[in-house]
């Protein structure tokens, strides 16, 4: 054990030395940094409702998962080459909301932040980029954009191969580096969407000098805002004819107009080659209008549309629906809109005058805010803009839980529960060192009461989620983890109340801590909102409260039973409490009771699931992998309890079987999700097999250890050597002792 600790310590030191021994390339000049956003600004924007993933949520939630997915953690530290002249610090810390606001309103700075985490820099060589010296490191958008086309191509390749492998039931023909690049490309795409989301508000469109006399010609050599460009297009006499031809679809019309531009020699020479080269739009348009001056001289209306079309098309298409923060625009509109979609509404024939006026109002207000001369005024106007947007959505049923959700996110109950559990475990472990000491008794009593804090934190998290989400505690795989953890920790507390040995509380705290680490790890690896929009078939509170809860309770019980067995096997292995038969008997009774408890809930839960299936689509049992997983646990629990009754297993045998129960739970809880077959598609996961196999190996190893202990114990008993006290000796009358 000591050797292992030493090894880990040396490895950690060497990694640190490696990190410290190279120049960190991830620094930016503080001069490029925009002013820090004030707390008022952050508060106003994080409460802003956004429609995302089929529901309306606070912008904070959206920002949190965007940063989590990109950076692999929900915070960012931008390091400077020299101290920041304002704060004097060598870095600036970013919370998710501040980062997203920079993406919206200070994109050039955001492009320089090192926010793209790559687990293995070697992957970058596949797109022709040189990785940083550290294997796992962060990269900026500006570093990656050079290989934007190759990234997109790799992403397409991987997606295609994945589809092909799925269709042919074969293994995909790409490796983990390819997949890493594909994920990076997705993150880069999502970042670009964030950058683009604010583009219509901050954009200034250059009016080229070669524009013939006509609309917009009075602005030659100047720049106009998106709203001004939209007004010019809308009032352009030619636009009406174009709309008639395109049946009122401005998107398609602008695409075709830009298509003409893109095919021109001028555009191909001077036009942008990659996303983000919007500064080349102006020169390319200028070149095109010069090249076609003769033709367009008599068509000034068309020329003015050519001048602004590429920008407006980009707003409509690239801004997409991802950042839909503009609430429905009055009567007849039920959709939420992104800023780019406002252009579409303003130009579309399908939208009403009220909608067009409202869309123009939002656009102009935001443009005016961003045009403010000082950063303080700019921020003040943006706060008002956010407040107005929020005010416009008030009264809508979908925004009723926005502030509740923000509270829930800010409290981060599960994160707090994790550290509380760990703290309690450490303190309980300390009391094991001096079981007879008075201070230990006092400390343990404090721990016993303190255990309610993380438990209540989990309850609070579940309660908030029930209120925000569909109305049931478990609606997806993520939500099973806190519920199962709560059950496991709760049963350990109950065991402590019954047996009073200080052990159960420690085991419960450890299980709680592990469960909370798993919660955080799962959330970080998925990096998507954990409050999902439910499949239609799952939208039934009755079954979610009964069947799913029964299953989760059974999983929690089975896991904690396995943890107690783990303690038993290790206690036997390291000869702890060798003379305290009551200690071992206590653990056996505890595990036996928990297995019986597991059986009650898994059997009822499984049958209830069948009844739900029968109620929903007339199929009580379909041998679906998820159903089979629950059946395996049920059969295993039944087999173990009957094995004990038949005398096949005694004390240590029960603990070995209890360890294997953990394996059956891993199978049902996680493994079947990886099989990619069956009806429970909503629970599917990818790429977790190494962890699952690791879990099986760990459980199998402990079970084997248990078997070995049993074998040696039997051998020593048979050879006449006094063995460790086993179940064969009646110890029921012996008093319980402190451990």
């Amino acid at each position: 054990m000591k050797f292992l600790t030493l090894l880990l310590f040396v490895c950690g030191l060497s990694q640190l030395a490696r990190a410290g021994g190279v120049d960190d390339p991830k620094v930016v000049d503080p001069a490029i940094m925009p002013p820090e956003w004030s707390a008022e600004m952050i508060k106003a924007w994080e409460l802003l409702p956004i429609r995302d993933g089929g529901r309306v949520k606070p912008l904070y939630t959206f920002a949190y998962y965007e940063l989590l997915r990109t950076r692999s953690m929900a915070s960012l530290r931008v390091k400077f080459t020299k101290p920041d002249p304002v704060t004097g610090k060598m870095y600036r810390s970013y919370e998710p909301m501040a980062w997203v606001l920079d993406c919206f309103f200070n994109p050039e700075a955001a492009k320089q932040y090192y926010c793209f985490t790559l687990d293995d820099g070697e992957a970058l060589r596949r797109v022709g980029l040189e990785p940083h010296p550290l294997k796992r490191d962060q990269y900026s958008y500006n570093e990656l954009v050079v290989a934007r086309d190759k990234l997109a191509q790799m992403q397409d390749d991987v997606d295609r191969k994945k589809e092909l492998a799925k269709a042919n039931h074969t293994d995909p023909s790409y490796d983990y580096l390819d997949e890493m690049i594909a994920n990076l490309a997705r993150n880069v795409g999502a970042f670009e969407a964030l950058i683009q989301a604010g583009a219509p508000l901050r954009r200034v469109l250059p009016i080229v000098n070669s524009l013939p006399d006509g609309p917009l010609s009075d602005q030659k050599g100047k720049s106009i805002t998106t709203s001004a460009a939209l007004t010019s297009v809308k009032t352009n006499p030619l636009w009406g004819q174009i709309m008639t031809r395109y049946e009122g679809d401005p998107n398609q019309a602008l695409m075709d107009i830009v298509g003409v531009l893109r095919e021109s020699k001028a555009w191909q020479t001077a036009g942008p080659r990659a996303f983000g080269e919007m500064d080349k739009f102006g020169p390319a348009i200028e070149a095109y209008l010069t090249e076609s001056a003769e033709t367009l001289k008599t068509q000034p209306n068309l020329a003015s549309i050519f001048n602004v079309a590429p920008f407006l098309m980009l707003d409509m298409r690239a801004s997409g629906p991802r950042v839909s923060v503009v609430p429905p625009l009055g009567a007849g509109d039920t959709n939420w809109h992104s800023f780019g979609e406002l252009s579409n509404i303003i130009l579309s024939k399908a939208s009403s005058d009220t909608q067009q006026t409202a869309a123009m109002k939002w656009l102009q207000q935001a443009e005016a805010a961003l045009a403010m001369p000082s950063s303080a005024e700019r921020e003040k106007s943006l706060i008002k803009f956010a407040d107005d947007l929020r005010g416009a959505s008030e009264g809508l049923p979908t925004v009723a839980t926005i502030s509740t959700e923000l509270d829930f996110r800010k409290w981060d109950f599960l994160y707090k529960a994790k550290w509380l559990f760990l703290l309690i475990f450490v303190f309980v472990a300390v009391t094991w060192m001096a079981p007879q000491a008075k201070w230990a008794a006092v400390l343990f009593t404090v721990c016993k009461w303190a255990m309610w804090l993380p438990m209540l934190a989990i309850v609070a998290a579940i309660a908030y989620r029930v209120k925000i989400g569909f109305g049931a505690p478990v609606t997806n795989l993520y939500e099973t983890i806190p519920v199962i953890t709560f059950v496991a920790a709760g049963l350990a507390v109950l065991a402590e109340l019954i047996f009073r040995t200080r052990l159960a509380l420690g085991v419960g705290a450890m299980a709680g801590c592990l469960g909370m680490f798993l919660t955080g790890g799962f959330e970080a690896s998925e990096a998507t909102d954990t409050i999902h929009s439910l499949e239609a078939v799952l939208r039934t509170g009755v079954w979610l409260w009964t069947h799913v809860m029964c299953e989760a309770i059974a999983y929690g019980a089975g896991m904690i039973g396995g943890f107690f067995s783990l303690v038993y096997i290790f206690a036997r292995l390291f000869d702890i409490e060798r003379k305290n038969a009551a200690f071992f008997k206590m653990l056996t009774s505890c595990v036996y009771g928990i297995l019986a408890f597991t059986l009650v809930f898994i059997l009822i839960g499984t049958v209830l699931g069948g009844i739900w299936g029968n109620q929903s689509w007339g199929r009580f049992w379909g041998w679906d992998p998820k159903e089979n997983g629950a059946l395996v646990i049920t059969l295993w629990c039944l087999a173990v309890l009957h094995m004990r009754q038949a005398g096949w297993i005694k004390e240590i045998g029960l603990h070995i079987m209890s360890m294997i129960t953990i394996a059956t739970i891993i199978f049902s809880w996680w493994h079947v999700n990886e099989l990619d077959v069956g009806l429970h598609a909503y629970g599917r996961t990818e790429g977790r097999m190494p962890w699952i196999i690791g879990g099986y190996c760990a459980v199998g190893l402990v079970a084997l250890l248990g078997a070995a202990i049993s074998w040696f114990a039997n051998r020593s008993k048979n050879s006449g050597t006094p063995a460790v006290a086993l179940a064969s000796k009646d110890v029921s009358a012996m008093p319980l002792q402190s451990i």
Partner: protein
Amino acid sequence: MSEISPSTSAKQAPSGVLGLLHRLWRLASSVSLCVVLLLWLTVLTLLGTFSQTEIGLYDSQAKYFDSIFFREELWGIPLYLPGAYLVLAILFVNLLLGGLIRLRKKPKNIGVFLSHCSILLLIVAGWRSFHAKKEGHMALLPNEQSDLVQAYQDWQLEIREQGSSEALVIRDTNFSDCSGGKSRTFFRNALPFTVKVSDYARNCEIVEEGHPDLPASAKRLDRFAVLPGKSLPTNEANIAGLVVEIRDANTNDLLTEAVVGAVQRGPGQPERPPLVVKVKDKTYAIELTRERWRVPFQVKLDKFNLEKYEGTEKAKSYQSDITKTDASGEEKLRIQMNEPMRRAGYVFFQASFGKVAETAPYYTVFAVVNNPSDQWPTYACVLSGVGLCLHFLIKLAGFLSRTSRNRAVTSAPPTV
């Protein structure tokens, strides 16, 4: 868990045939047998789950769960192992004898008794459902009416005289082995011709004779042939095909020979014209379809309602407003997720929906089930819930009272 009363002690055990029967009785009702069966069922469930990734649910179910024995190879040696059907049958006997008859009839065993009863009921429900359940689906476009239900899995060859509402049906179990040169001839007294089936493929493509993948041995008829494909793990996606040879029942003269591809009926989709045979002024249509059957009432889709999550294509909820018509009159009903329609022994469940083209209206799909043991699992669940909870509480109460007694006798201060 529970106690089994000893039937006779070892010393009293009779000898001879009676002794053998006695030992058999003890074995059949033993807890050890129960453990073996439960462990084997666990293994079967694991095998049946993992095999689904390779051979799909339908074949896995048939191999491991619906079978009496199944064949498995271990290092090339064929093994015939008991399937779930046989194991459950033995478990039923074991549970009946050991879990009910031999169980000590004491108040403390009431929970175990009830739980065993519930498991027996579940096994019976499963057996009844396995043998008597009929299931299929009905897809309807708005204002479309039907009483015809189509099965998900099994094929049948239908021979229908023109104008008749009845058809002669040959199930695929009768011709599924007719491939690789094998054929089978079907005849019937009232039918003026015989039907010889060959070249059956569970999943195939009907291709033109010049197709590059077509083996030389494939029968080419009227420019077409059956090109067998690999069976898909999702059995519903397999499209069967075969070759039929029609001969005059009296003279044995060849009337026609043709490739018959399966007809997958979807709402609004054009049906492939069946093979038409004219014999003695009568016209017959021959087609290969999924098994079909009728319900004793008509169902008309009045309106399909679909609600999607904002800004997504994901369905939030969907319901079908229907009119059910039979001799007793009309009934307006709504079928939606978790709220099926139960009428005349048939249950209509809202299963899915779809579109045949982007601009077409949505059609609704009902899963239709006729299961005589429909509600039995619910009764079993109640019974097992009561039984297990009772047993658990009895055990817990006993344990707690023992623990408190132990604590009372100890002189040491309570451990914290």
